[in-house]
C-alpha cells in the first residue's frame, strides 16, 4: 500500500515536472496507444499460431500429451488477447469484429455432444443442442445446411450466431476452449472440463463418436482464429484503418481511449462478467468456464486498462512498448486527479490479483461463485467495486480533458443516439 502510493506520487511528480517542461501532445498519446494496440494484436497472432501448430499436432498424433500441449498454448494465447479487450469499446472497427473471436457466453451444445443435464433447445435458442460434429446436415429457417465439410467458411457463414441468436457461438477462443476441455461438470466444485484425448483418437480408440469431424471442427475454428487475428493486427499497422481512424480526430481519439477503459471496466467486466456470476451463483457464467481460466480473463482485462492509461505494455517476448500517455495528459491538467486514477487502477489490480492468486493456489473461480460462499463473494466483489470505482475517475478525467461533448463510435452510453454533437 505504502509503496504503491509512494511510487504513484513520485510518478505523478515526475509527470508534473515533465509536463511543465514540454507539453504532452495528443497526437503522441494516440500514437503510443496505437503502438500498444499493434503490439497486443501482434502478440495475440503470434501466440495463436503456436496454438494452431499444437492443434495440428493433436490431430495428427492424438495423445494425452498433445492435448495438454494444445491446452497450454491456449492459456498462453489468452494473455495478450485479454489485454487487448480495452480497444473494443471506442474503436468501432474492433467492436464490430470482436464477436468473431471472443463471443461468450455460448450454448456449446451447438458444436458437440453435451451432458444430459444440459437439456435441449430452449425458448431463446432452437439450436442450443444442434451438435454439428454429429450431424452432417441440419435445417435453418427452412433451408438445408450441408455440414459434411466442416470449414472456416461454414463456421463463420452459417453457424456463427445461427438464427440470430448470440449464444450460437461457433467460432473464436471459447469454441476452441470447449473443443479442448469439454463441459465442466463439476458445478461449483473444484475442477475444469475433462475431455479425454481419445475424443480425437482414430479408429476404435475414438470416444463419443465423430472424432474426425471433431478434429475438423477444432482445426477450422483455430485456423479462423488465426486469420481473424491477422486481419486485426493489420488494422493497427502504420497504414491500417484502425490507426488512421483514431488519428484523424485527436479529441475523438483521446475520448475513444477513455471510452474503452470505462466501458470494459464497468458494464462489461464488473457487470456482465463478474457480478452476474456472483448473483446467479452459476459457474456457467464464468468467462472461461470450460478451462477454468476466468481469474486470468479478469486479471488481464484489468491489466489492459491500466497499461493503456499508463502508456506501457510488456510484449510476450519482454519488449517494453511505452510513450506519452493519457496519464500525462490528465496530469498536466490536474495532477491530483491523475494520482487518483493511478491509485484506483492499482487498487483494482490488487483486487484482481487476489482473485488470481487464490484461484491458482486451489480456490478456483467456480468455488468462489457457490451460493453462500462469503469469502469467494468478497474476493470477486472487491474486483467489481474496484472496476466501478475507477470508472468514476475516468468520468472525471473526461471532464478534466474537456471531452464531455466529444462523440465516439462504439459506446452505447457515450455515443449519442443520432450523432449530432460537433
Amino acid at each position, binding site marked *: 500500500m505504502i509503496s504503491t502510493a509512494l511510487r504513484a506520487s513520485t510518478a505523478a511528480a515526475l509527470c508534473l515536472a515533465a509536463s511543465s517542461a514540454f507539453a504532452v501532445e495528443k497526437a503522441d498519446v494516440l500514437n503510443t496507444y496505437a503502438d500498444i494496440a499493434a503490439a497486443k494484436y501482434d502478440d495475440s497472432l503470434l501466440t495463436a499460431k503456436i496454438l494452431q501448430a499444437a492443434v495440428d499436432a493433436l490431430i495428427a498424433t492424438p495423445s494425452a500429451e498433445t492435448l495438454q500441449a494444445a491446452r497450454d498454448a491456449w492459456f498462453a494465447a489468452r494473455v495478450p488477447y485479454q489485454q487487448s479487450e480495452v480497444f473494443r*469499446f471506442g474503436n468501432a472497427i474492433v467492436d464490430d469484429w470482436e464477436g468473431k473471436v471472443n463471443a461468450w*457466453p455460448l450454448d456449446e451444445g451447438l458444436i458437440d455432444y453435451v451432458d444430459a443435464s444440459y437439456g435441449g433447445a*430452449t*425458448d*431463446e435458442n432452437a439450436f442450443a443442442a444442434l451438435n454439428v460434429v454429429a450431424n452432417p446436415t441440419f435445417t435453418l429457417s427452412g433451408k438445408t445446411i450441408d455440414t459434411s465439410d466442416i470449414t472456416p467458411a461454414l463456421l463463420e457463414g452459417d453457424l456463427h450466431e445461427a*438464427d*440470430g441468436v*448470440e*449464444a450460437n457461438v461457433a467460432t473464436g477462443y471459447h469454441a476452441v476452449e470447449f473443443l479442448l476441455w469439454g463441459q465442466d461438470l463439476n458445478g461449483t466444485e473444484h475442477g475444469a472440463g475433462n475431455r479425454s484425448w481419445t475424443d480425437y483418437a482414430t479408429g476404435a480408440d475414438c470416444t463419443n463418436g465423430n472424432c474426425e469431424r471433431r478434429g475438423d471442427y477444432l482445426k477450422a475454428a483455430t485456423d479462423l482464429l488465426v486469420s481473424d487475428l491477422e486481419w486485426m493486427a493489420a488494422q493497427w499497422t502504420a497504414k491500417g484503418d484502425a490507426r488512421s481512424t483514431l488519428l484523424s480526430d485527436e479529441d475523438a481519439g483521446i475520448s475513444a481511449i477513455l471510452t474503452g477503459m*470505462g*466501458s*470494459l*471496466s*464497468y*458494464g*462489461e*467486466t464488473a*457487470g*456482465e462478467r463478474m*457480478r452476474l456470476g*456472483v*448473483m*446467479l*451463483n*452459476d459457474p*456457467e457464467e464464468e468467462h472461461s468456464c470450460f478451462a477454468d481460466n476466468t481469474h486470468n480473463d479478469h486479471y488481464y482485462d484489468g491489466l489492459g486498462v491500466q497499461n493503456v492509461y499508463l502508456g506501457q505494455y510488456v510484449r510476450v517476448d519482454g519488449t517494453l512498448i511505452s510513450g506519452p500517455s493519457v496519464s500525462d495528459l490528465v496530469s498536466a*491538467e*490536474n495532477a491530483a*486527479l491523475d494520482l487518483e486514477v493511478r491509485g484506483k487502477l492499482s487498487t483494482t489490480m490488487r483486487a484482481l490479483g487476489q482473485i488470481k492468486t487464490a484461484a491458482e493456489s486451489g480456490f478456483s473461480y467456480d468455488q468462489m461463485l457457490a*451460493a*453462500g460462499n462469503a469469502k469467494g463473494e468478497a474476493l470477486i*466483489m472487491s474486483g467489481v467495486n474496484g472496476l*466501478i470505482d475507477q*470508472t468514476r475517475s*475516468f*468520468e*472525471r478525467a*473526461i*471532464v*478534466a*480533458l*474537456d471531452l*464531455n*461533448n466529444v462523440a465516439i463510435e462504439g*459506446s*452505447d*452510453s*457515450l455515443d*449519442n*443516439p*443520432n450523432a*449530432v*454533437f460537433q
Partner: protein
Amino acid sequence: MWKSYTLALSLALSAPSLMAAPLAPEITTSQIQPAFAALAQRADSLAHRTTTHCLSDPAQMTQAYHDAFDAWIAASHWRFGPTETNTRGFSLAFWPDNRGKTPNAVRALLAKATPETLKPANFADQSVAAKGFYALDFLLFDVDLQGKVPSQNRCDLAQAITHDIARIAAILNTEWQHEFASLMTAPSARYATAAEATQELFKALTTGLQLNDDLRLGRPLGTFDRPRPKRAEAYRSERSLRHLMVSLENLHLLALALAVEAPEVRSTLDRQFYRVISRAARLDDPTLAGVSDPQKRLRIEAVKQGIQDLRSTVATQLGPHLGVSAGFNSLDGD
C-alpha cells in the same frame, strides 16, 4: 448543502451550470425519496397479502403484486447508490433473463426447497434468478406451471420471495431517507461537485431511456423476419406495455426537473414525452404481442422512434445545457 464555491472549484465546468442552482437536492426530495417510500410501503403490503391471501383469495395477492411492481418500475431508473450496493437492484429485478435462468431457478426451488431454504436469512443468499418481481411473474403467472405444482408449495415460495422483496425495499428506503440523500446534497468523495451529482441524475435519464428503447422494445421487436414476443418483459402477468408507460411517465418528470433552467429545451422534451406516451397508450397491447403482426408492429416501432427522438434531444440539448455527458453505465458492453 452545495455551495457556489464548490462549483467554482470544480473542473472544467461549462458556463451554464455555474449559474444554475444545484438540482440534486430538489430532485432527491421531490422524486427519489417518495419513490422509495412508496416502494417500501407497497412491498410490505405485498408480503402481508401473500401471507394472508395466497391460498384463500389469490386475487388480493395479485392486486398487491401489480401495485408493488408498479412502484418498483417507478423507482427503477434510480439505479445508483443504494440499489447498486451489493446485489439489491438485481435481487428485486433480474431482467432481461436472456439465458432462461429464472424459469430454471424457480422450478428447481419448487422441486426441492425445504422450509430451511425458504427461511428469510437463507433465502437472501439464493441466486437472483429465483428472487424478486420477475421470479414472481413466472411463479404466479406461468401457464405451464399452473396445476402442476401444489398450491401450498407455490405459496410457500411466493411468501419467501415477497418477504425478501419487502426486506430489500425497506433497506433502500432507509438509505435514501438518510445517508445517501446527504451524499446527493453536499460534496463528498462520491460526488465531489454539484456537477457530478447532476451527472448522476442525467445518467438516470439517459440510461432509463436507453433501457426502454433497447430492452423493453428492442428485445421483443427483434427483426421484422424474426420477432421475439417471448422476450417481452413480464409478459406472463401482462405487464410489458405497462412498464413502458410507468417508466416513461417517471422519466418525463425527471427530464422536466433537469431542464428547469432551460425553458426551450424543457418545452421540447415535454412535447416529445407527451407524444410518445400518448402513442404508447394507444397501442392497446399489454404483452406487446403485436411485434409479430406487421400492422401492430409499425405502431410499436413508432413508439421506439419517439424514444429515440427523446434520447437525441437529451444528448444534444439537455446535456450541453447542464454541462454534463452521459458517462458510463451498466448497459455498456455486449
